[in-house]
């Protein structure tokens, strides 16, 4: 996502090295994260290109904090961020998730057995 992947075969990707390295004269790319209010998650908001951390702070304040729209900004050099993408589930471990459980049939059976089927919410739709 942040261009940290291995180069793809696209000719243009080779030519542009899509964000992987800073371009000549650009300095360092800093990812900007912002927190809208205390208690909110700190979320990725964009990036600034700056010669160093001092300039990055000035640019980030200007571009992401001009209107007191955030209570905090985090700046992280892009090369410090490593991305993990791809979470295979070859064994389909559905029992670890809500969609791995289907209780409808057994619940109906239990209610029938206890004689409480008519009292159940939505019983008329069953």
């Amino acid at each position, binding site marked *: 996502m942040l261009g940290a992947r291995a180069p793809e075969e696209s000719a243009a990707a080779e030519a542009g090295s899509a964000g992987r390295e800073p371009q000549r004269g650009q300095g360092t790319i800093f990812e900007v994260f912002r927190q809208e209010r205390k208690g909110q998650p700190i979320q990725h908001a964009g990036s600034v290109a700056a*010669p160093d951390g001092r300039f990055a702070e000035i640019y980030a304040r200007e571009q992401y904090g001009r*209107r007191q729209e955030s209570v905090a900004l985090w700046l992280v050099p892009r090369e410090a961020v490593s991305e993990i993408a791809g979470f295979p589930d070859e064994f389909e471990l559905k029992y670890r998730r809500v969609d791995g459980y289907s209780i409808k049939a057994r619940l109906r059976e239990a209610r029938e057995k206890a004689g409480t089927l008519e009292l159940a919410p939505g019983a008329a739709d069953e």
Partner: protein
Amino acid sequence: MDTRTQEFLDYVQSGGQVETGDWMPDEYRSKLVKFIEMHGNSELMGVLPERDWILRAPTLQRKLALTAKIQDEVGHAQLIYRVVEDLGKPRSACLDDLVSGKAKFHNVFHYPTRTWGDVGVIAWLVDAAAIVSQKALLKCSYAPYARIMKKICWEESFHILHGRDVILALVTGTDEQFGLVQEALDRWWEPLMHFHGNPIPADEDPMYVWRIKSQGNEEARQQFLDGYVPQIRELGLTIPDPALRKDEATGQWLYTEPDWDELRAVVTGHGPASEERLAFRRLSREDVAWVEQVVLAEAA
């Protein structure tokens, strides 16, 4: 079209989002760069018509608001060029192409501002036309651009309010002030009608095909007319197109067909103020080149 490109096309057409490091067809990347670069150029050039009026604004509050608006626009240009850089084109190359006339920017910024009425009309109606397009860009298939569009749309909403406030102050003032707005509207109507581009059917527009734009040009123009014709008319202003009316049966606005050749001439640098504005950009770039050199040298 090879299979991988076809799959990518199907993916974006069904709402799929693309991130910076994802594989993308060369055509998608180049169309994306061209579109986003033009947007960045437009934000930067859009500053110039308004900049002329900071020193001539009628009140201190207007001076401050105009200055803040201009700072916002430059900030937007920075955000947008950053996105273009991550797609592989350095900012310096974008600026080179801008000042050489190779790259385009929106038609409306090729026209001069003659009165304070123009300043109101630009901040209100030109920004409104822009926000119609920008809202559609929230659904751009290229996610980094869609994300900054969210920020930009939020910030542009103040600009429109400022513009409308300027207009309202004028139309509730003297006859001469009202006249300034009407006269400005008379001159800006055609560029506004040009703004969303010629009515190419959406499925023939590569920008829509790749879902860079999520609506066709004509759809955008119709949305603009729907939203703003009533707002203009309720102030007692006259829109200088006698053929403009809404067909109640179809819900479509009908209007005098704009001169599309003029639009083409303007965006290729032959507008009334194009050369003057590009010359200014060229000059200011030369003037500040030393700052860039010093700053980058110091940081090295």
